[in-house]
């Protein structure tokens, strides 16, 4: 269908009126550029917002205790209670499809006082007591050494893993870190590893100024005993934590003698729910992007259809001559269709390339100017590009259909009579 003769014919016809061809092509060019850019920007926004979730396993929730709000079984309201380490095993054994349960304790925090000392240097850092699973919920890159292990937990070893911010605050450049000691609230800990967050955005500084120590060591060293500050719970893939959380709450209530209908006693943050909400929002934004882009593209397509109609009208006599020379109606039709198709696809390709260039420029600027809140790495996948191409091909054919039909509607004898 597309041999060299056809190409010559089509290019000749398109070349015959360069300026008009250009203007017509511009409509489609612009439409597809806007379509691709909209999708890329949506994607950039999505990347930016979901980066706030960090790499934390999204099918997770955090759960802590609050004061009870109802009296129950002789206990007064306004009572405070703590989760115990035994709750962790209870959740793991009684609730199905739970992947990780990490009990956590924390020391220090935002604007806290200096709590870590090494030689003459001091710093205020966040200290967490954690289980080894935590690194699976919150991925981080271990730069040197290792993370907490189960033998650390069992032996209650006084070891710690420090963030890059801690490293900057307490060590000179190039100093050996592993094997040194830091004093946390007066207790010496051996540094066995350093880490940085795999994909930190915004809160990077805070995350890097963090020290992880074994949960059991934390309890012993800082007098927490069996108490658990809060838990990070992740469900198995394929089961939403949102559907499991009520079971977990009920279990906790019964274990801590809290009224079953006292919803205020347990505080939680459902990351999965938030994540789904954001994802849903961006699915809608993507649809809007497609919709608006397709509408803009459509006006370009109508432009092509319109100009092809004029071209057909102008070339009525030429078409008559061609038919007198032996062109069948289908040959004429396919020529018009192909002209419109080529015009659409060519301008569309240029549009996609231009959009890709614009995205590249945006990314370069973002890279140079540093991160912008809620916006990162605008991009489109190959899938979007192929979808755009399919839209182009379909619309190119649609644009040519009406003009192609009108090209052969007139009898050749009438077409030849036109001056």
């Amino acid at each position, binding site marked *: 269908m597309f041999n060299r003769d056809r190409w010559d014919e089509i290019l000749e016809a398109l070349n*015959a009126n360069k300026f008009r061809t250009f203007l017509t092509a511009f409509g489609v060019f612009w439409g597809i550029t806007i379509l691709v850019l909209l999708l890329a920007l949506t994607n950039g926004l999505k990347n930016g917002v979901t980066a706030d979730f960090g790499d934390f396993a999204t099918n997770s929730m955090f759960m802590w205790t609050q004061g009870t709000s109802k009296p129950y079984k002789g206990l007064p309201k306004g009572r405070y209670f703590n989760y115990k380490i035994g709750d962790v095993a209870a959740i793991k054994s009684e609730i199905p499809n739970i992947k990780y349960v990490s009990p956590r304790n924390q020391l220090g925090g935002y604007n806290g006082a200096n709590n870590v000392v090494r030689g003459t240097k001091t710093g205020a850092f966040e200290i967490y007591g954690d289980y080894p699973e935590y690194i699976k919920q919150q991925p981080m890159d271990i730069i040197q050494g290792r993370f907490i292990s189960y033998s650390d937990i069992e032996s209650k070893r006084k070891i710690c893993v420090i963030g890059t911010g801690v490293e900057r605050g307490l060590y000179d450049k190039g100093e050996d870190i592993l094997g040194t000691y830091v004093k946390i609230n007066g207790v010496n800990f051996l540094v066995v590893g350093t880490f940085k967050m795999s994909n930190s955005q915004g809160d990077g500084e805070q995350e890097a100024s963090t020290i992880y120590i074994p949960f059991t060591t934390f309890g012993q060293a800082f007098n927490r005993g069996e108490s658990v500050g809060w838990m990070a719970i992740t469900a198995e893939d394929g089961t939403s934590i949102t559907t499991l959380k009520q079971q977990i709450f009920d279990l906790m209530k019964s274990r801590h003698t809290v009224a079953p209908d006292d919803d205020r006693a347990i505080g939680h943050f459902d990351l999965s729910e938030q994540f789904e909400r954001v994802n849903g929002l961006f699915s809608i934004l993507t649809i809007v992007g497609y919709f608006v882009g397709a509408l803009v593209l459509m006006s370009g397509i109508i432009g092509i259809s319109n100009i092809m109609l004029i071209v057909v009208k102008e070339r009525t006599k030429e078409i008559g001559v*061609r038919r007198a020379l032996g062109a069948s109606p289908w040959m004429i039709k396919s020529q018009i269709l192909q002209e419109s198709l080529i015009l659409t696809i060519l301008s569309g390709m240029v549009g996609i390339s231009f959009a890709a260039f614009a995205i590249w420029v945006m990314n370069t600027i973002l890279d140079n100017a540093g991160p912008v809140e809620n916006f990162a790495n605008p991009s489109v996948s190959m899938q979007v590009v192929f979808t755009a191409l399919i839209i182009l091909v379909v619309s190119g054919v649609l644009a040519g259909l009406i003009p192609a039909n009108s090209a052969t509607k007139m009898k050749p004898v009438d077409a*030849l009579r036109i001056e």
Partner: protein
Amino acid sequence: MIQIKDLHKSYHMGSNSLHVLKGINFDVKQGELVSIMGSSGSGKSTLLNILGMLDEADEGQYILDNVPIKNLNEKIAAKYRNEFLGFIFQSFNLINYKSALDNVSMPLYYKGVKRKERTERAMHYLEKVGLAQWSHHLPSELSGGQKQRVAIARALASDPKVLLADEPTGALDTKTSYEVMELIQGINDEGKTILVVTHEHDIAQMTKRIVNLKDGLIIDDSPVEQIRASEQIRLSEQLKDSQHV
């Protein structure tokens, strides 16, 4: 070559009906050079359009090279036009964005001839009409006479059975007209059947037979003694020379 029996054609415009051809009968043999004459409205163009399958008769029989031409759909009509007929128009009807060579090779393109062979054959016909060195010029770069020569080459390109010329000299001055007629006579000498519609007597005299149409009927159909166009050109040049002396 062409047999026509009792051909009728009317045009309907609203409630008015115009009976243009009222029963035409005539035969054309292989190798004839026939001119069809008549005043405007006599139906000569309609007749030519029907012969060229650009239009269809209401009634009557039309046989071209032993093939009955009737109930054509556009696809078959296009095929027949391509194989049987070559058209020469008054206004040349070259495609203005194609070179002379490309214009000539168009019928071959529609016939499905391969590119290389097509170019060779088109070049052959351009040589035949004496325009080989103009092959890559656009029609706008050619004179009227040259354009008509390209058109004749194009009509010949697919080696049709019959050439149909609709006022081929209508847009040309006398000298160029004679040159074009000289070419047409040359092609006829090689055995090609040619029909020329014209209203100019001197042009008609250069054919071998004149068919006179009036009000949709043939009123006269007689052979003539052919005047060679080359002779006329020589005479007019002599005349010009003698005027200068």
